[in-house]
């Protein structure tokens, strides 16, 4: 049985909530293989970037304006439903209380709230797939920065039963009663 103090604390950036590793990462937290953290900034970024991606995809598909609106509305409902459930799994922290004085290595100030979120806990690992702005596989401000796949690989090595448990959980199963 995992003891809470053995669990690594991880901050999930909007980029990993956006991509296809999202389900495995969230399941890892929900099933108790690590502690997950986020902030209102990360939630906002996730919603904004997901919305932009849905709109871009609709434009690429040549959708008319009404169809774009329909896709955006439906997607937003799905995202809101997920955020509601995630709020029971990921712990929100007050990133704004963390000073930004040591974050000069992040050239874009829009990335500071991500690192502030990680430092507010502080977490052991920041999981991000934003390789343009964050130095993956490096430690900054005492926090290891990993991409989603290397993080999951590390998690599966640390907890040998984790992959099977996550796969079992995410496999199709009966829906719960509403």
């Amino acid at each position: 049985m995992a003891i809470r103090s053995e669990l690594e604390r991880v901050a999930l950036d909007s980029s990993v909530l956006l991509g296809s590793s999202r389900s495995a990462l969230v399941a890892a937290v929900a099933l108790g293989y690590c502690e997950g953290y986020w902030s209102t900034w990360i939630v906002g970024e996730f919603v904004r970037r997901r919305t932009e991606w849905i709109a871009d995809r609709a434009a690429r598909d040549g959708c008319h304006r009404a169809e774009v609106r329909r896709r955006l509305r439906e997607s937003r409902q799905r995202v809101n439903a997920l955020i509601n459930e995630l709020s029971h799994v990921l712990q929100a922290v007050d990133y704004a209380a963390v000073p930004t004085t040591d974050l000069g290595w992040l050239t874009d100030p829009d990335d500071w709230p991500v690192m502030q979120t990680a430092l507010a806990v502080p977490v052991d690992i920041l999981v991000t797939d934003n390789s343009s702005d964050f130095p993956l596989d490096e430690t900054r401000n005492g926090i290891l920065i990993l991409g989603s796949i290397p993080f999951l690989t590390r998690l599966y090595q640390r907890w040998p039963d984790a992959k099977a448990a996550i796969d079992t959980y995410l496999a199709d199963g009966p829906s719960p009663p509403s």
Partner: protein
Amino acid sequence: MVSLTTLTTLESLEQEMAQTGRSIEEAALREALGALARPERGFLTTGQAAERLGVSIPTIKRWIERGTLAGGPVGGRWVVAQESVDRLGRLRESLATLDQEGNPSPDEVRAIYRRSRRSA
């Protein structure tokens, strides 16, 4: 709704009664436990939880031991708090719904963040 703490407290009392030879009280507490640890009171058997989540009973027991689900052995059988089962089910449902809608590929994710940097 009955809490898991109430059930474990009743079970401790039942064991205490058994150890001190108070068989009438022990039987009454066992009967109360049986009546309380039921779906209409917010508790499921491991079999019911396994069916709802589409996993095996050993998996449910492992998740209880990990603290993923609220539950444990009560009155000689394992019970699971229905709310924790439903919550795990709802989370999986909402993850699957978004996955079915589609996700940006790893290359697209990289491009989205590169693009925002250029436009900053």
